[in-house]
């Protein structure tokens, strides 16, 4: 190739190169245009969208749970209070291998089998992303150990949680109730009532007792912190804050000392007691035995402990005052007598001769009096004082079941008393209509006869009995029983009393009422069925004994022989109010398998009334005192 040709080639190649340079520049310009167009799209066109995405990235609302309101007794002593404690919680979703994690944690700090069982139960009830407590109330040392090992235990968290302590113990468990972890059904209820947002950040909710019925007041309002958070979700700083509003405190009518006296008076017996102030409806004492330790439930109960409570034949979880239903027995007699007078069927002076039994016309069946041979000549006062069955068999027949039903209904039988606790039973006040509806059967005259002495279909709770008793004491005013006397605002600290709710007034002729009251006073006097229980009282008591056949609480199958004998005994009942001339306390006592009301139930009531009215604490009271044998 000649030099000239070579130079020509060189020239051509150089020209081509310059053309390629231009093409390259064009290519670069094209790429740059693509980038700038993309930038325009992101930063100008879609800026609003992305700025909002960035904001929601960085800002998160962190709920702060409010302090739960306290529950105090009448004298201001704490029944339920808060404390914060460190808990060990496990976020299942973040653990690689749950079992391995549990084993590692177990090697670091002590985890009891009970805690492990509880953890597994809660795990089954919770969602994948929730954290589940493994151990509560960690010691400082345990917190330190866990903190030091946190890096190798993903999903293991130590959290400061608010807990509830029930220092009044098992005796108050039925009244105060307990809180527990929010479960699916709680969540559903919260959602339906539109309160779900207020429970963001809350772990617990009232499950029973006052904790349940006053949940809305006790819980308070959840606050929200607007936090700036980084990519790992860690809060960097607070942007703004809506502080939580603590729950309201509750003060009860109930006096812890009176409650203790009542508890003590029961001795080994099971049963229920409720005392009201007949002027206000305030619940002065409410005992249901046996109790249980409410603290077991606060952070989820161990399944074994739950099984023990739930399957115990003594049924400690049932509040007998509210939910135990028993035939009223002879405690219905003062009201029957009043009905007889008010309806004009009896006059105070009317008397019968009691042969010890009653027969319906055209029937040979004998309805026997509890006293063989009868009480002789019996007027209204004596019929109450000696609890004469024959008198009431006849009265009931003369009255008829419908009039009996209508009159007793005015005193609250057959419907809920309206107390500020949930789960109350309405009992059963039978009538012709009811039997037709419920059983599609006619009413038999014999059923009227036994209804006269509180047997048969009639079922009542101790709470209904005490409400009716309070009406006898206050002259017929029906007031809803209420535990909470006042609520305290967390900011002003002022107690705001809750006014009594009066359901109405039964019109009663004072002369008739006085006659019945005299009968109830006679119960406590010589010749009466509870004379022993009234001995030495510094004030006058009006009372009535009763016996309930064992039907209310179904019995488990695991009773042993020695207990069988006892549980076949009747339940003892007693109602009373005092002082008779100016009633300040009305009371109903149920002693399961206590036999005669005058023997076991009346002395318990006496101890409570003594302490309430005179401040006298009982010595060791003998519950099995021999009575006059009467009912």
């Amino acid at each position, binding site marked *: *190739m000649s030099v000239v040709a*070579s*130079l020509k*080639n*060189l020239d051509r*190649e150089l020209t*081509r*190169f*310059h053309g*390629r*340079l231009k*093409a*390259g*520049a064009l*290519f*670069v*310009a094209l*790429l*740059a245009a*693509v*980038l*700038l167009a*993309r*930038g*325009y799209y*992101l*930063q*100008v066109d*879609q*800026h609003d*969208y*992305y*700025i909002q*995405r*960035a*904001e929601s*990235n*960085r800002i998160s609302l962190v709920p702060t749970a409010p302090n739960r309101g306290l529950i105090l007794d009448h004298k201001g002593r704490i029944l339920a209070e808060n404390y914060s404690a460190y808990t060990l919680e496990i976020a299942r979703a973040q653990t690689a291998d749950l079992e391995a994690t549990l084993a590692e944690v177990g090697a670091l700090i002590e985890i009891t089998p009970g805690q492990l069982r509880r953890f597994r139960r809660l795990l089954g009830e919770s969602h994948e992303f929730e954290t589940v407590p493994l151990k509560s109330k960690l010691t400082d040392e345990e917190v330190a150990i866990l903190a030091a090992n946190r890096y190798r235990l993903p999903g293991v968290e130590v959290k400061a949680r608010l807990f509830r302590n029930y220092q009044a113990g098992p005796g108050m468990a039925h009244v105060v109730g307990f809180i527990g972890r929010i479960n699916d059904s709680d969540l559903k209820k919260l959602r339906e009532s539109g309160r779900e947002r207020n429970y963001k950040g809350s772990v617990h909710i009232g499950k029973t007792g006052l904790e349940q019925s006053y949940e809305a007041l006790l819980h308070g309002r959840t606050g929200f912190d607007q936090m*700036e*958070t*980084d*990519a*790992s979700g860690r809060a*960097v700083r607070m942007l703004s804050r809506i502080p939580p509003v603590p729950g309201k405190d509750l003060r009860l009518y109930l006096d812890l000392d009176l409650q203790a006296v009542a508890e003590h008076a029961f001795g080994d017996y099971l049963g229920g007691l409720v005392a009201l102030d007949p002027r206000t409806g305030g619940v002065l004492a409410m005992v249901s035995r046996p109790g249980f330790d409410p603290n077991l439930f606060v952070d989820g109960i161990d399944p074994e402990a739950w099984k023990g409570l739930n399957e115990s034949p003594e049924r400690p979880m049932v509040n007998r005052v509210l939910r135990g239903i028993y035939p009223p027995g002879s405690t219905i007699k003062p009201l029957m007598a009043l009905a007889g007078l008010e309806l004009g069927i009896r006059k105070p002076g009317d008397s019968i001769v009691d042969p010890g039994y009653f027969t319906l016309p055209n029937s040979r069946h004998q309805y026997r009096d509890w006293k063989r041979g009868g009480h002789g000549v019996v007027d209204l006062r004596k019929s109450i004082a000696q609890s004469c069955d024959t008198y009431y068999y006849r009265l009931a027949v003369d009255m008829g079941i419908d009039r009996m039903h209508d009159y007793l209904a005015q005193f609250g039988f057959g419907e809920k008393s309206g107390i500020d606790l949930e789960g109350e039973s309405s009992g059963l006040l039978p009538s012709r209509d009811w039997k037709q509806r419920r059983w599609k059967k006619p009413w038999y005259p014999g059923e009227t006869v036994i209804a006269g002495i509180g047997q048969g279909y009639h079922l009542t709770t101790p709470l209904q009995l005490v409400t009716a008793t309070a009406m006898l004491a206050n002259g017929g005013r029906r007031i809803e029983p209420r535990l909470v006397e006042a609520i305290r605002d967390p900011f002003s600290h002022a107690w705001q009393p809750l006014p009594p709710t009066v359901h109405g007034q039964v019109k009663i002729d004072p002369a008739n009422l006085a006659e019945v009251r005299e009968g109830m006073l006679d119960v406590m006097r010589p010749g009466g069925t509870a004379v022993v229980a009234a001995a030495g009282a510094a004030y006058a008591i009006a009372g009535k004994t009763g016996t309930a056949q064992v039907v209310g609480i179904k019995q488990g199958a695991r009773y042993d022989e020695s207990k069988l004998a006892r549980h076949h005994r009747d339940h003892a009942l007693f109602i009373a109010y005092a002082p008779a001339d100016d009633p300040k306390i009305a009371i109903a006592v149920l002693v399961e398998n206590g036999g005669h009301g005058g023997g076991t139930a009346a002395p318990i009531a006496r101890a409570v009334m003594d302490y309430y009215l005179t401040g006298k604490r009982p010595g060791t009271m003998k519950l099995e005192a021999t009575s006059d044998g009467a009912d």
Partner: protein
Amino acid sequence: MARIERGPMRWLRHLDPILLMLVLAVLAISVAVMTSASGQSTARISGHLINIGLALAVMVVMANVPPHLLSKAGPPLYVVGVVLLVGVALFGEIRNGSRRWLDFGVIAFQPSELLKLALPLMLAWYFQRNEAVLGSRHFAIGGVLLLLPFLLILRQPDLGTALMIGASGFYLLFFAGLPWKVILAGGVLGGASLPLAWRFMHDYQQQRVLMLLDPSSDPLGAGYHIIQSTIAIGSGGLFGKGWMEGTQNQLDFIPERTTDFIFAVFGEEFGYVGAILLAALYLAIVARGLTIAARAPTQFGRLMAATLSLNLFTYVFVNIGMVSGILPVVGVPLPLMSYGGTALVTLLLGMGILMSVATHRQLNKT
């Protein structure tokens, strides 16, 4: 001039002032952004400054190496690079699922890094030798020289690096005068074979491409990077949130934000106006490089200068395209901005070659 030629400052006379100013401007921006992105970590900032100093020194040295000497280094570097790549294929160490590293006991080394410069040098040397007699035979041999390392890197597998190295080789062939019809045919053929290539892609590579099409399909997994960086850029708006004020940056939402994703920090804090300025600086560097290429006296200088310029912008495009969500996530740093000594040194080494080509023009004549 005599003073400079004799004193120690004589080293500096081979620097191209315009290119130097532009490079220093981008480096200054990188220090500011690094300060913000690292959360004012002194370790990161001083590390970056040391890298810059080192890379600038390398640039000065390279600027003083005459192009004709440099061109002689092409063939041996290329041969060593390819041999090492074969060594990787046979004895390489597997990291993160691919065989890319050679472990020499003291240092572990990715031979593919070497090829980034060795391939253009080799090709430029080759076309320089055959200047004025270029025919299709030479382009065919050039193609083989390109494909050899490309395929070796592709099967490591490292698609990103293979494509970047393939691009630099292609630019060189292009500037050497590869006929348009060949380029066109190659483009058509390449487009047609895309579905085939998809079948040969590894799972994670397919995943990256899919993620690009719909990042929200896996917002906490592989799509997270793209989502967070586009949020950062988009939320920056026209003027940005201000230096050290980017929430996506400061609160850790941007992954890898001192290295591959540093543009997301820049875009968030300096906005579209900042992005235009940065793009203008890059374009000015490319323009200066192409000008140097146009004025270069030798074939080698022309080809190297043009290829290095286009190569730089390719890195810019791939990185920003990836960070702003129009290209798949491949590990390509943003030139002159991202943290990382190797990439910075390689890049300023290229700038040094550009300066050498620019300043040895007159010297060659004398």
